[in-house]
């Protein structure tokens, strides 16, 4: 960054903004060209999977980073969408499976997930801080056990299998390249929406509520309604992630929405950083890489220990996660550029 500053002698405010724009463009080109160099394994198991979990982390980042509400129930919201896809679409578990086409099933699944998210929000918005974490953990755990023991809707322990990603526009999205681009497209959409929305009226109200809910009431805002709406929006992103997740796995079972998965989403968001929507995607990439390769490095029995240690080290060095590390080693990437909408 220092070098480029020297090459452009007049470093004014717009130039600086342009540079942030250039960062996005470079990242975009790299992500679009990634399939040219990546094997199928790296394309889906690393690329697609990171993008999907990045989206789940993004839905948490929106609630926690902008709204100050740390939720452990985002995987539950995603799971609800995933189960809906299995139930409304096709599966080979011989239960339900209405056979709706994907373009009806997917939007309905996302809407149901968003409504479920609003309900979870409505239950938890009266609490703050650690109590929000506890109540969302309770909801996530309860949903997990309910799914495991209910055979009429959730098909109990085994869940649903044989769910196939759709084929459309003559492209089969089960193909690794197509599936990667599908995930990339929706991730970019969600990322851009959050980045734009952070400077919208609602984005500002959410951040103001995080900073001082009492004052927001004294300015005429119905704080509870705004928080519940934030949960609804986060539910749309979480539900979208859930739909992609079930298309990716081809199956959904209580294990998909277990407590360890809930904690994975939290770790992704915290490792990445909660101050900018790029954070959860960075966090997801690190966690997915570790989960994939830690077994090779330290063996199957200790790979969780390694993940835990990396988590500790990152949080210990930088409370702002990878975003904070970035800021530390690149002085020009100051706190300013972490402000919403930049």
């Amino acid at each position: 960054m220092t070098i480029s500053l020297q090459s452009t002698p007049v470093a004014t405010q717009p130039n600086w903004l342009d540079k942030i724009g250039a960062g996005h463009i470079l990242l975009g080109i790299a992500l679009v060209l990634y399939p040219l160099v990546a094997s199928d394994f790296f394309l889906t198991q690393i690329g697609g999977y990171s993008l999907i979990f990045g989206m789940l982390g993004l839905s948490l980042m929106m609630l926690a980073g902008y709204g100050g509400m740390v939720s452990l129930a985002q995987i539950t919201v995603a799971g609800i969408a995933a189960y809906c896809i299995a139930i409304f679409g096709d599966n080979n578990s011989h239960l339900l499976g209405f056979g709706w086409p994907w373009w009806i099933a997917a939007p309905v699944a996302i809407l149901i997930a968003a409504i479920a998210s609003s309900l979870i929000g409505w239950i938890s918005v009266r609490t703050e801080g650690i109590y929000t974490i506890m109540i969302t953990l309770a909801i996530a755990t309860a949903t997990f056990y309910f799914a495991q023991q209910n055979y009429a809707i959730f098909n109990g322990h085994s869940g649903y299998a044989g769910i196939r990603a759709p084929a459309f526009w003559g492209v089969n999205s089960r193909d690794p390249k197509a599936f990667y681009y599908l995930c990339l497209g929706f991730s970019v959409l969600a990322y851009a929406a959050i980045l734009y929305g952070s400077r919208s009226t609602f984005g500002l109200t959410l951040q103001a509520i995080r900073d001082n809910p009492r004052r927001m009431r004294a300015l005429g805002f119905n704080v509870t309604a705004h928080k519940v709406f934030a949960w609804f929006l986060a539910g749309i992103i979480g539900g979208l992630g859930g739909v992609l997740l079930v298309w990716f796995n081809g199956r959904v079972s209580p294990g998909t929405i277990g407590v360890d998965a809930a904690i994975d989403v939290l770790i992704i968001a915290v490792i990445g950083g909660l101050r900018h929507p790029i954070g959860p995607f960075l966090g997801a990439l690190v966690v997915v890489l570790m989960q994939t390769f830690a077994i090779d490095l330290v063996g199957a029995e200790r790979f969780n220990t390694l993940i835990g240690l990396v988590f500790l080290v990152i949080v210990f060095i930088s409370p702002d996660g990878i975003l904070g590390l970035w800021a530390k080693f690149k002085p020009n990437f100051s706190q300013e550029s972490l402000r919403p909408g930049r």
Partner: protein
Amino acid sequence: MAENDMASRLQGTGAYALELDGVARHFGALVALSGINMRIAAGERRAVLGSNGAGKTTLFNAVTGDFLPTAGRIRFFGEDITDLPPHERIRRGLRRTYQISQLFKGLSVLDSIFLACRGVSRRRFSLLRPRLNDVNRVQAESILHAVHLDGDRDALVATLSHGQQRQLEIALALAGAPRFILFDEPAAGLSPTERRDLVAILNGLPKHIGYVIIEHDLDVALRVSEYVSMMHNGRLFKEGTPQEIEADPEVQEIYLGGKHG
């Protein structure tokens, strides 16, 4: 809201901005407020004096709904607002400032004031960015100017000095056509110059905007008010013009004596 519906709420007392009937607030066994009866006319400027713990801020909290009173009724321009949530009272034209600044440290100065304007306006849930010529943004810019914060419009609130934060605190209360404002020690921690600015801002408010001001600094309090209410141990115990209050020996004993003695 229909005209006659509004009229039925007035109960013939619409000339008052604020009416308190027997307002009380208990915190467990502690009586913070008891039997407060108060009538404040529309456009009136009233100072509330009293030593620490007299119940002044508790009175404000009861009026704005930050903490509900345990007994009594509160009417705002004739309408009973006792059971309304805080944001509904604000939308009816009530505003307040806080003794300890209650601001948004992660937002810019302009965005903070913009939200204050938007809070009593439409499109609070808009997912669009406000345009440069958005009516609430334009309002925010002019309030920014009125409280002398033009130079810091894009600064993060957390980076403002104490005096600037107090100015922003006032700016938030001026947003969106207020009808009545509660100022809770607006001069706390201000320098003499900043106090003069504050007096100018208060005296420069449009005449139809009434307010109640809690202020320990008598130089400020008596110069910006027409009438003074004295509180002691959760009760109103004396009311009068600034001159009468200043000359009252009992007041000097409790308030001035306690503070300066």
